């Protein structure tokens, strides 16, 4: 089922319905991510990289506090999106404000001190790059043309874009309606793909939500179903030799892809982006089984 977004007040949800969409809370999510990355880094084979990503997430958290964004009053635009069933912040179509570039500059400024070598070079190069060029990088990334952007640049550009889009997403005045067709492979808010899916606890116990890799929204998808092609025929759950593991890879025998699914019930502290990044060994192992990944992690862009 796809998720259709309409202005708030147009329709209300019946009691007991599964909420199709959970909007992000940028004021807390980057901090939670940073703390989780720091926890996971202890004794981890990739500790240095996880700690570096924790620094980025902490900088993103600070940006949200220091550069609060207001959702532009584009009521006509949103109404038009709703009328055609399009995502309100469809990241390629949405007219980006220059403010995301200010966010990028602020982010780079926070990260530069204490860095050396390639990282420092990458940050400084981005700082001096013309705004039009950085706009081109952003457009390429949002359009999924990852080969057009170096994977090092992509990390920082995407981190700034995420702070921009998550703040806008958090302020949308909308209702999400579950539609009876099958198209939930992309984020209903910004049309990017998911990083992983999370099986919730509490009042959403047992429900699975896909986590957007850009705007950090979460949208519902029925479990035991391929999140890419929506087949249910040959779904496998792969894990290290341990039945109680929280992070597993969900593979599909029809489209040959996989994405991780994480059970909060097994580990209440897990966070989609952090735990995905900290379980790269599982990616390597499932690649050996012949499956390919159907989503990016915002801290790990593919080689160009």
């Amino acid at each position: 089922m796809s998720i259709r977004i309409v202005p708030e007040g147009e329709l209300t949800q019946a009691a007991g319905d599964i909420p199709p969409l959970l909007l992000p809370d940028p004021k807390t999510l980057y901090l939670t991510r940073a703390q989780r990355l720091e926890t996971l880094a202890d004794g981890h084979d990739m500790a240095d990289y996880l700690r570096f990503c924790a620094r980025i997430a902490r900088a993103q958290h600070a940006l949200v506090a220091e550069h609060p964004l207001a959702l532009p009053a584009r009521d006509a635009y949103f109404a038009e999106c709703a009328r055609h069933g399009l995502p309100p912040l469809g990241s390629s179509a949405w007219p980006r404000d220059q403010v995301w570039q200010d966010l990028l500059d602020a982010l780079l400024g926070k990260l530069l001190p204490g860095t050396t070598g390639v990282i420092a070079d990458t940050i400084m190069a981005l700082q001096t790059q013309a705004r039009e060029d950085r706009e081109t990088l952003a457009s390429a990334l949002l359009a999924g043309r990852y080969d057009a952007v170096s994977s090092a640049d992509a990390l920082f550009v995407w981190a700034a874009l995420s702070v921009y889009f998550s703040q806008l997403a958090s302020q949308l005045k909308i209702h999400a309606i579950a539609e009876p067709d099958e198209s939930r492979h992309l984020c209903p808010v910004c049309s990017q793909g998911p990083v992983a899916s999370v099986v919730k606890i509490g009042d959403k116990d047992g429900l699975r939500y896909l986590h957007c890799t850009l705007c950090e929204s979460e949208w519902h998808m029925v479990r035991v179903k391929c999140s890419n092609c929506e087949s249910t025929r040959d779904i496998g759950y792969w894990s290290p030799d341990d039945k109680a593991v929280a992070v597993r890879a969900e593979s599909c025998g029809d489209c040959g892809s996989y994405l991780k699914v994480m059970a909060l019930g097994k580990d209440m502290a897990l966070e989609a982006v952090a735990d995905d990044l900290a379980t790269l060994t599982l990616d390597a192992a499932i690649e050996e089984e012949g499956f390919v990944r159907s989503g990016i992690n915002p801290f790990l862009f593919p080689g160009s």
Partner: protein
Amino acid sequence: MQVSRRQFFKLCGGSMAGTTIAALGFTPGVAMADVRSYKLLRASETRNTCPYCSVGCGILMYSLGDGAKNAKSDIIHIEGDADHPVNRGALCPKGAGLLDFVHSPNRLKYPEVREAGSTEFKRISWDEAYSRIARHIKTDRDANFVEKNADGVTVNRWLSTGFLAASASSNETGWLTQKFVRSLGMLAVDNQARV
């Protein structure tokens, strides 16, 4: 079903060359070296309907073994299906105990008969079971079938035998149950497996 909707990525091949980690000078090599000592386990989750009663709660059954590699499949966990409109993940105590029901050593796995006067059950073949059941049905129906009531009106009913069908049956099974039961003139039929 559309086969390819999102982009696909291979991240880990070639020591992750070109990815953000490598491009920024970090070494994912250590994490990747683990792969050789990494034993992957494949599990499945299968939707089903609880067999106990006619509420028909949705369940998810977790099993190990992919069926293809001579591995013995085994159900390791059963829980309510949170996506199911009937029970939204909840199960009653009987449903919550399904795993023990599946693995129960007392589970009936083949037909058995206790002959009149005997205290022992003995195992019989399915063919023999079907023949005996058919014989009992025929004998009882021949003896008790009511063709006309006291007023001479044709009723064609058989009141001395009832039929207990399964609760988690498909629509087609329900159709077959109805055809079989009503064509014999049987009136007592229940689809509730609460006994």
